[in-house]
């Protein structure tokens, strides 16, 4: 019979839709609406996983996000493999393929279980005490073994084909948790007409109501609970300003009421439409946040408490009432609170035999225990479980009476059962409240931490602030909504919780003396026992943070949801302190694990970072250009002809510029229009150069320092009008330079009438360089006399090219006669093509950044960021000539006067020539003074730029060398791979030092 443990009727599953799935290859069936856990239980599968350290057989402990045991891998296809999922959270779909983890060769027979026998020798923190001898064995032997033993599932090894989405959202009230309190809060808020987002991690809204028996007689606002729920949800769904998000976990609470939600969109579907995102990251800014996150049931800590078949009482009730699954046929309830009796009563109604109720409290005389007795159930109060029996499923428990001191005494009774339900009481879920930095306050009456003073506009409602019971939760939800709506009429008072709705115990149940091998687990997944905590305390770990880190309690994938308070109580007991004195570990995001992909969302590949292209990009692509990434830009590096190497292409491109004409897209350079009557004053204060004497229609090479004296940026600056400069910056420096300019203008030099506008992308810049460049463009240009007399080197003119307006700069970064043609960007490609066509007669050759680098190096022009590195002054770079000598101040000037800046031992820019002309030095190679390098002898410089120059028929290099300019003519040695290479120190200008070519 399929699903033998399914009840004949009831639950919220869809019994009309049976779903086939597999677990470790075994074919099983469940229903739509099941989780993997409920479906496994319906098939009587209790052994679901193995623990982390001892490989003990483990079952399903809970029915929710706190599950530490039932951790599986789900494989949708070869690439869609997800490890470490909680079976209690995995929605069942047709064809689901689940695999157990951390076992070999199989879940039933696991060799790793030997660790269980070795457990006396591998207590908490054992690895700190051993594996140190011999030293080399750590890396070769011990560590690989430890690592192989660690880890749970296997990470997928194929790229994830799924996509992920994100969305920003804003609301007046964000309600986290759609249980009774959350729904009441959302309804009350929505009634005010404000924007509400209500989210819940479960597929269905209702929270604890979902676990109520369908025939529940509980009333809410006079209606049967079930009716109230559906009416409330219908009302909320009808309101346009209300957003309802199910399968959505609020995982992180960030400053200023910014909350991260993770919505799961497709993991429950049988098949996924291509492009349908798997998850969506909601980034919500809420004016007010209402936390109605409920409470989690605590397990009890007693010997043998980890066998499959032992589960939380509330979980058993959920499986029965929500999923129609019986966790056993003969069950025992072990409890420390009244609320858990409901599980026994409900199971009994469903036909499960309740072999006994063991209540560890001295008396059990509340309404629910009385109801249990009336129903004929046997209640043993003042008793405990001292052991359990069974290997892969609990078979029986061993019960002892407690004596006056609370210790087990007398004879031990064995009670056969196939399920043990347990409850130590409920712990309010204060995770998000604590993440928001709200203060947690110890509550003696409830023996738990409750939300105290909030740090944000946060309001807690219901069980998460210790308000238990249906009526109280509803009232509290409405109260929170009122407070969030600005009602300050003292409604933050906690409603009186219904009697018997809270209570319980913390820490370990009393254990019989002796029996050192029996384990009472506190943290199931990490196999931390009460003895481990005691050992940590003995070894001096007294802060809860230390205990946590030493024993790893609370550090498993459930992050201590079931274990933290018990661990705290045990440690407090061991060191003789009160719980609040021991402290609480900090709650950190995420509440439950969140998929990496949803954080990245759309950000991948070409959307990882913007791909910025210039107006001629499409042309360059057509021409087969090879591109390089420079910042966000794609720049053409070289234009290979077919089968041409980079080296050959660059040589060809360089020679074309030197001998005829080349064209280069310089559009990526930053451009800033500096306008206003004080523009020249501004430029004088900022740049090292003097600008007062720059005539309109002329341009100049400018250098910008940081105020610490080091070169920040450089570029040509043109004076377009008396009160208008066209400033260019490096490609990578554009934003930083504009930012620095704005900073000075807005905060230091507020006396200046100057405005800045970025025009980087307004202009497409086409550099036409080479002795033939004038002839090439002459036929296209109107309104500008291109002759040397009318437009000399560093001249600027306005005119038209190809019928469109142009700013024409006669500048050269190559050392040849050259022009930089600025045209409005949308015309860039068209003008480029026209120039290319016009240049055919002169052998015009497009060239890329690589040839540009070689050409400028031949001339000894630096590239900021390559030949300088943020520690270089104008003097160091040989650019002191650019400093406006008469200026009393400019940015960086004062810093240049510091002692270290004056040292003759500073690195200075020089040229290097190798003895053998074909040897091209490695960029970044280090310089030493003697042919033999002694280890530890510090280098005196490094190669910054190095190329083969086709023009010169030999290699050239630039370098920064200590006291370099005084070393001209010396032989130094370059240290890279292999033997040191002798080089001669020279001037960095290798070509046409007189500049006759660019003045042609």
């Amino acid at each position, binding site marked *: 019979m399929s699903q033998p443990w399914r009840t004949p009727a009831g639950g919220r599953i869809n019994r009309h839709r049976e779903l086939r799935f597999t677990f470790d290859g075994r074919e099983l069936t469940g229903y739509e609406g099941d989780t993997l856990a409920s479906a496994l239980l319906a098939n009587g599968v209790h052994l679901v996983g193995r623990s*982390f350290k001892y490989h003990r057989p483990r079952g399903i402990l809970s029915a929710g996000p706190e599950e530490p045991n039932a951790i599986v891998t789900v494989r949708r296809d070869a690439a869609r*493999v997800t*490890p470490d999922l909680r079976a209690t959270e995995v929605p069942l779909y047709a064809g689901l393929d689940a695999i157990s983890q951390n076992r070999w060769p199989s879940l039933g027979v696991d060799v790793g279980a030997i660790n269980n026998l070795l457990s006396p020798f591998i*207590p908490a923190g054992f*690895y*700190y*005490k*051993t594996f140190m*001898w011999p*030293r080399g064995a750590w*890396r070769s032997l011990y560590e690989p073994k430890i690592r192989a033993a660690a*880890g*749970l*599932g*296997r*990470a997928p*090894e194929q*790229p*994830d084909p799924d996509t992920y989405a994100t969305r920003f959202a804003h609301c007046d009230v964000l309600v986290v948790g759609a249980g009774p309190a959350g729904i009441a809060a959302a309804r009350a808020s929505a009634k005010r007409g404000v924007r509400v987002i209500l989210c819940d991690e479960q597929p269905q809204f209702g929270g604890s109501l979902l676990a109520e028996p369908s025939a529940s007689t509980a009333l809410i606002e006079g209606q049967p609970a079930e009716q109230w729920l559906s009416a409330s949800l219908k009302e909320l769904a009808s309101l346009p300003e209300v957003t309802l998000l199910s399968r959505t976990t609020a995982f*992180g609470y960030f*400053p200023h009421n*910014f909350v991260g939600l993770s919505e799961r969109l497709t993991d429950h579907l049988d098949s996924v439409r291509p492009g349908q995102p798997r998850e969506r990251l909601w*980034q919500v800014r809420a004016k007010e946040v209402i936390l109605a996150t409920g409470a989690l049931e605590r397990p009890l800590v007693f010997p043998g408490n980890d066998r499959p078949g032992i589960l939380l009482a509330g979980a058993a009730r959920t499986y029965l009432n929500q999923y129609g699954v019986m966790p056993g046929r003969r069950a025992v309830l072990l409890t420390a609170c009244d609320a858990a009796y409901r599980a026994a009563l409900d199971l009994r109604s469903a036909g499960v035999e309740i072999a006994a109720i063991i209540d560890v409290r001295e008396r059990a005389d509340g309404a629910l225990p009385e109801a249990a007795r009336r129903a004929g159930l046997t209640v043993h109060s003042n008793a405990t479980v001292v052991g359990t029996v069974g290997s892969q499923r609990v078979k029986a428990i061993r019960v002892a009476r407690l004596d006056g001191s609370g210790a087990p005494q007398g004879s031990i009774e064995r009670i056969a059962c196939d399920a043990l339900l347990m409850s130590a009481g409920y712990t309010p879920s204060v995770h998000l409240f604590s993440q928001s*930095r709200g203060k947690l306050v110890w509550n003696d009456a409830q023996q738990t931490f409750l939300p105290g003073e909030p740090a944000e506009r946060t309001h807690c409602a219901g069980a998460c602030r210790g308000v238990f019971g249906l009526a109280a939760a509803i009232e509290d939800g409405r109260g929170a909504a009122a407070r969030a709506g600005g009602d300050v009429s003292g409604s933050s008072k906690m409603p009186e919780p219904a009697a018997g709705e809270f209570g319980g115990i913390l820490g370990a149940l009393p254990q019989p003396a002796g029996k050192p091998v029996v384990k009472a687990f506190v943290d199931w997944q990490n196999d931390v026992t009460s003895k481990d905590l005691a050992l940590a305390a*003995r*070894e*001096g770990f007294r802060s809860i943070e230390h205990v946590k*880190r030493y024993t*790893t309690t609370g550090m498993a*994938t459930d992050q201590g949801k079931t274990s933290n308070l018990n661990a705290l109580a045990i440690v407090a007991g061991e060191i003789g302190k009160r719980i609040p004195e021991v402290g609480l570990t*900090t709650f*950190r*995001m*995420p509440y439950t*694990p969140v998929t*990496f*992909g949803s*954080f*990245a969302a759309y*950000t991948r*590949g*070409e959307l*990882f*970072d913007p*791909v910025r292209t210039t107006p001629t990009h499409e042309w360059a692509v057509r021409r087969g250009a090879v591109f*390089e990434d*420079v*910042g966000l830009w794609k720049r053409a590096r070289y234009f290979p002809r077919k089968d041409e190497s980079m080296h050959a292409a660059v040589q060809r491109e360089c020679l074309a510029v030197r001998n005829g004409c080349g064209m280069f897209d310089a559009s990526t350079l930053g451009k800033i229009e500096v306008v206003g009557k004080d523009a020249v004053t501004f430029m004088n204060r900022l740049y090292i150069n003097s600008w007062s004497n720059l005539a309109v229609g002329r341009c100049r090479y400018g250098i910008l320092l940081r105020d*610490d004296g080091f070169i920040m*940026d450089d570029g040509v600056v043109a004076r377009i009008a008396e009160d208008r400069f066209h400033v260019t910056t490096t490609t990578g420096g554009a934003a930083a330079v504009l930012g620095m300019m704005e900073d000075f203008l807005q905060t230091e030099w507020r006396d200046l009438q100057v405005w800045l506008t970025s025009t980087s992308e307004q202009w497409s810049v086409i550099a036409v360089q080479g002795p033939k460049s004038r002839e090439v463009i002459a036929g296209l240009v109107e309104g500008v006399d291109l002759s040397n007399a009318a437009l000399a080197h560093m001249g600027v003119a306005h005119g038209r090219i190809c019928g469109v307006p142009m700013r024409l700069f006669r500048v050269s970064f190559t050392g040849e006669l050259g022009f930089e043609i600025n045209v409005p960007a949308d015309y860039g490609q068209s003008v480029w093509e026209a120039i290319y066509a016009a240049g055919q007669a002169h052998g015009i050759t497009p060239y890329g950044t690589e040839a540009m680098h070689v050409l400028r190096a031949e001339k000894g022009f630096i590239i*900021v*960021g*390559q030949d300088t*590195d943020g520690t270089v002054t104008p003097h160091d770079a040989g650019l002191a000539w650019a400093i406006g000598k008469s200026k009393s101040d400019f940015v960086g000037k004062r810093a240049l006067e510091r002692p*270290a800046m004056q040292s003759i031992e500073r690195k200075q820019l020089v040229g290097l020539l190798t003895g053998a002309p074909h040897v091209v030095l490695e960029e*970044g190679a*280090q310089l030493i003074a003697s042919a033999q390098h002694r280890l530890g002898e*510090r280098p005196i410089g490094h190669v910054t730029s190095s190329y083969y120059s086709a023009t010169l028929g030999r290699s050239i290099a630039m370098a920064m060398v200590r006291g370099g300019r005084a070393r001209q003519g010396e032989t130094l040695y370059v*240290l*890279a791979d292999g033997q040191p290479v002798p080089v001669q120190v020279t001037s960095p200008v290798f070509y046409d030092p007189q500049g006759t070519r660019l003045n042609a």
Partner: protein
Amino acid sequence: MQRFSGLTLLRRGLSGQRGWQPQWRRAEPKPSYDAIIVGGGGHGLGAAYYLAKEHGLRRIAVVEKGWIGGGNTGRNTTIIRSNYLFDESAALYDHSVKLWETLSQELNYNVMFSQRGVMMLAHTVHDVQVSKRHIYANRANGVDNEWLSPDEARRICPLLKVDDIRFPVMGAAFQARGGTARHDAVAWGFARAADALGVDIIENCEVTGFLRDSNGAVAGIETSRGVIRAPRIGVSAAGHTSVLLRMVDVRMPLESYPLQALVSEPVKPIFPCVVMSNTIHAYISQSDKGEMVIGAGTDAYTSYTQRGGLHISRHALEAICELFPMFRRLRMMRAWGGIVDVTPDRSPIIAKTPVPGLYVNCGWGTGGFKATPGAANLLAWTIAHDDPHPINAPFTIERFRDGELIDEAAAAAVAH
């Protein structure tokens, strides 16, 4: 000190692991000491250990505001490397790596130093130039570092995607001696070893002021647990250094920023080394427990909150998912924040202060963990000799006045 070994573990296992002593005593503050270290992180505990071990001081206290190892020691991504550019930095960090290599034996505490290798990716022509400069400079300084082609990088880390990504990998610098260690163990190991040498480790003891003698020299500290006198005091308090030094009217060239890190749920071993990309801001390794440990960036603003923005962790995971697209399905299990103290040149300060008898070790920014034993060792030397060791001599406060910066950040600067 109770010796740790496999044998003692076995022996005590037969008697229920009873009989272990506290790893360090819960010391009560004495009225005076020869030296006090303020800050019970790895750096501070280590300094106390080396003061006792190598410089013969016996009466030493470490005072810690909270619990030892609870600051940046326990909040980092445990990366250890020494392939820094400048000679001064390489010497400093390599001093530390050498100490790491024998630290488990030195302390008789397994700090799990795993020399898995640190791979630093180059994505642009500029990155390649910077990487190679590092490699050649490191080698000249005796620090191992080698260039890997993209294929070679993939041979070491097969999951790495080098093509068809926004910034294809053009190669990598690889320091084989780099790796990771178990962060908490470093604090505990130093604490236990220092304690065995008589050092008092005083937790839950917050410094509220400094005592000065008539010459202005430091004479002790005022704490939440009373006055403690000592003629020499070393401050090793990371993000809180500015706050402490303000108590003696010393302003520091420091700013404290939130730094975040996160881990995935644990998976079986899949990631053999450390991979870093400064260009796209990715820092990832796999811990002994199987978690993928991922470093995120600092927030833009100074803060002492030990937490940061969602966009910062998003940014970190964008980069990880770009380089390792199979990890998109892994899940973030836990994230946390620390406070890092950053100097203008991104290099640390281990130096004397303007106040006689007061020494400071700070400014490690995002990279302090790797330096733990080295910084501790040099701080101890500086306190013992009232003068820096040659290795930390360049790392003064005065370098900012004189313009003798050790500008690791600027040296990697991108322009063009």
